[in-house]
């Protein structure tokens, strides 16, 4: 039953193949149903695989399914295979589950779009790539999936390609991703040089070949890759811009799945991280700083999707922070719960946008309770979950992370706690301004014209996923309650990390744990109260939205000044001077030179017979002279 795992990437690939060939002919909504069915089938396969895995003995839940030998070039052998263990199956479950819900949602959201079937083509391919990434048994096949999700992200972000901003955003996303890919490539090179194989099992069996330096380099390279894919400092700027894509894309790719790939990679390569303490500190630092910076920016954004985008960056920062503190299971737990409530929040935002006819500015929303009750209710659940209010899922997950960080680095714990406060604050601000208060949408429409009639609730295809996700956002805490670690997620995932010698148990006293949890809850409530007090009743408070935060700490401008402009100058130099003057000059110059030489040579063809006779005699004289000298 475990071997059903191969169906997981296969079914979406099949869906992709069918849709890419027949999609346009099938049209709306059949192509949507096919896409959803493919992912649904994938989810079922995941369940079957999980059952099979649970049937195995706890210590031996690591199965490799060999598919086919892929590359055999001398000493370099790579086979296409799947590694099915608790870590990969956890990822697969929530990926396929949430993807199915989002596919269903998209059938309603993308109604009436010109490129309806194309959307599902890309989505299916994306899910297939993500599953390949997660299930792969070696680094190279992971890289295949890695690139696959990158390119699908590019396609989906610039889905509305006739919009300049969307096309640019797609390019930006892809470029930042590629910079991170250099990290993954470097890590692969180093690993291959050290161990001679890219296979995970082989690498982990040979950890002794890794010196501290090599392990640190590999870990830092992986961090670079994760920073690119998961939008961490210094490569996070693409994620807010990626909101140009349709909202289901933001929900799936930029909340629940692709951006978690980086964290997954770090978790998978945990044994290597274990051997590199310096790298781990760097990872912690990067995660903590990113979480903080992104949270500050989120407090001042006015576009509903941008708030959620920066929130994603911040939450992933938490996950990376946990990874750095070697709390892999806490990071995974946060990843799973975050996937649920972030997807919920994005889909809810999509519902609002859809209902208000493409309005995305929160200052033009408000008083949506009576108009969109389902969206209102589910969004509220998502809000409370992310703010960390007990007993919602976020409280347990974030608490887990912070408890582990306390054990590792008190300073970062403090920063994390403050960031949690900010998280509660900005999410409450978002909820209060967008959903409560006075109805600002009746003042003006999205483009300045008089408002459109009545905003409406979304169709059932959009509401059902919201409800399901809300249930999970509320109750996902049950996967890993602190007093039931051994019987839940921790117990399930533990063997993966123990075998890699990467697991560090926290042995804090129960009292300390309760105190920390209490601090988390307090902070959440504080943030909530603060936001309520400040934002209730008014939607325009510019003094609370510092320009520095609105402009993302001027990060983009700084990149432009330091990297962008000089690169453009260099390119201009290369184009105008090197290419035109030097290279073209050399090529054309040599051609012209030959032409001139030929012209000069023409002078010998005078047309007079006697001159030619002179040339003959000259040749004769030379020949005779040569004979005289050479023969004697």
């Amino acid at each position: 039953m475990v071997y059903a795992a191969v169906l997981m990437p296969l079914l979406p690939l099949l869906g992709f193949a069918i849709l890419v060939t027949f999609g346009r002919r099938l049209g709306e909504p059949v192509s949507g149903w096919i896409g959803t069915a493919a992912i649904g089938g994938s989810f079922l396969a995941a369940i079957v695989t999980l059952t099979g895995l649970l049937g195995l003995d706890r210590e031996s839940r690591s199965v490799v399914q060999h598919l086919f030998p892929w590359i055999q070039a001398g000493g370099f052998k790579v086979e296409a295979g799947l590694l099915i263990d608790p870590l990969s199956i956890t990822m697969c479950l929530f990926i396929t589950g949430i993807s199915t819900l989002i596919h269903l949602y998209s059938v309603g959201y993308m109604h009436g779009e010109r490129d309806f079937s194309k959307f599902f083509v890309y989505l299916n391919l994306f899910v297939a790539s993500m599953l390949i990434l997660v299930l792969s048994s070696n680094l190279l096949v992971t890289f295949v999936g890695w690139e696959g999700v990158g390119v699908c992200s590019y396609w989906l972000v610039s889905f509305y390609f006739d919009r300049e901003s969307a096309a640019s955003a797609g390019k930006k996303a892809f470029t930042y991703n590629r910079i991170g890919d250099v990290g993954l490539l470097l890590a692969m090179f180093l690993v291959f040089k050290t161990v001679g194989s890219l296979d995970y099992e082989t690498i982990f069996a040979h950890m002794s070949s890794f010196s501290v330096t090599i392990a640190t380099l590999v870990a830092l390279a992986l961090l670079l890759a994760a920073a690119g894919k998961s939008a961490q400092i210094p490569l996070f700027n693409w994620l807010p811009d990626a909101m140009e894509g349709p909202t289901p894309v933001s929900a799936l790719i930029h909340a629940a799945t692709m951006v978690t790939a980086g964290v997954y990679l770090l978790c998978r390569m945990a044994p290597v991280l274990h051997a590199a303490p310096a790298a781990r500190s760097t990872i912690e630092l990067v995660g903590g700083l990113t979480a903080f910076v992104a949270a500050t920016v989120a407090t001042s954004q006015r576009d509903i999707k941008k708030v959620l985008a920066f929130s994603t960056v911040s939450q992933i920062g938490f996950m990376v922070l946990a990874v750095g503190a070697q709390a892999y299971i806490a990071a995974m737990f946060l990843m799973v719960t975050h996937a649920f409530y972030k997807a919920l929040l994005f889909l809810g935002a999509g519902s609002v946008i859809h209902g208000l006819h493409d309005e995305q500015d929160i200052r033009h929303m408000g008083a949506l309770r009576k108009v969109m009750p389902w969206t209102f209710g589910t969004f509220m659940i998502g809000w409370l979950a992310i703010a960390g209010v007990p007993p919602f899922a976020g409280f347990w997950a974030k608490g887990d992370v912070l408890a582990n960080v306390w054990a590792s680095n008190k300073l970062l714990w403090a920063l994390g706690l403050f960031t949690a406060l900010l998280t509660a604050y900005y999410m409450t601000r978002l909820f209060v301004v967008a959903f409560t208060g006075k109805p600002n949408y009746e003042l003006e429409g999205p483009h300045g014209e008089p408002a459109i009639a009545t905003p409406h609730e979304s169709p059932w295809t959009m509401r059902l996923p919201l409800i399901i996700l809300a249930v999970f956002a509320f109750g996902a805490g049950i996967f890993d309650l602190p007093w039931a670690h051994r019987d839940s997620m921790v117990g399930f995932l533990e063997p993966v990390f123990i075998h890699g010698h990467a697991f560090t148990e926290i042995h804090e006293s129960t009292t300390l744990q309760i105190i920390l949890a209490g601090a988390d809850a307090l902070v959440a409530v504080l943030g909530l109260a603060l936001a309520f007090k400040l934002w209730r009743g008014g939607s325009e408070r510019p003094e609370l939205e510092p320009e520095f935060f609105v402009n993302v700490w001027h990060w983009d401008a700084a990149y432009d000044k330091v990297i962008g402009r000089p690169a453009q100058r260099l390119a201009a130099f290369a184009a105008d001077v090197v290419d035109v003057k030097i290279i073209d000059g050399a090529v054309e110059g040599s051609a012209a030179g030959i032409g001139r030489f030929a012209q000069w040579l023409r002078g010998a063809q005078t047309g007079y017979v006697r001159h030619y006779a002179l040339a003959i005699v000259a040749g004769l004289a030379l020949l005779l002279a040569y004979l005289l000298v050479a023969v004697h």
Partner: protein
Amino acid sequence: MSIPGSFYLVLSAALFSIGAVGVLLRRNILVMFMCIELMLNAANLAFVTYSRLLGDIGGQSIVFFVLVVAAAEVVVGLGIVVAVFRRRSNAVADDLSSMRG
């Protein structure tokens, strides 16, 4: 023992050179032709000399053939000259310079 061959050979070389000078410096087509005949004769003389020196009749056979070929060449050459320079009062080689590069 008659005249040593070297005398004949020097004479042959001298005749050849004079013929060459003539070809290079005279402009009248017919005089150029005659100088070419001179050169051919110089070569014939050399052949005959070597035929005597080496005791090989092959040298004289060659002269035989050279004679024939020279005659044929003159025939054709003068035919061309006639064809090109008909009705013109002076046959100057420098007039035919249209095949220049």
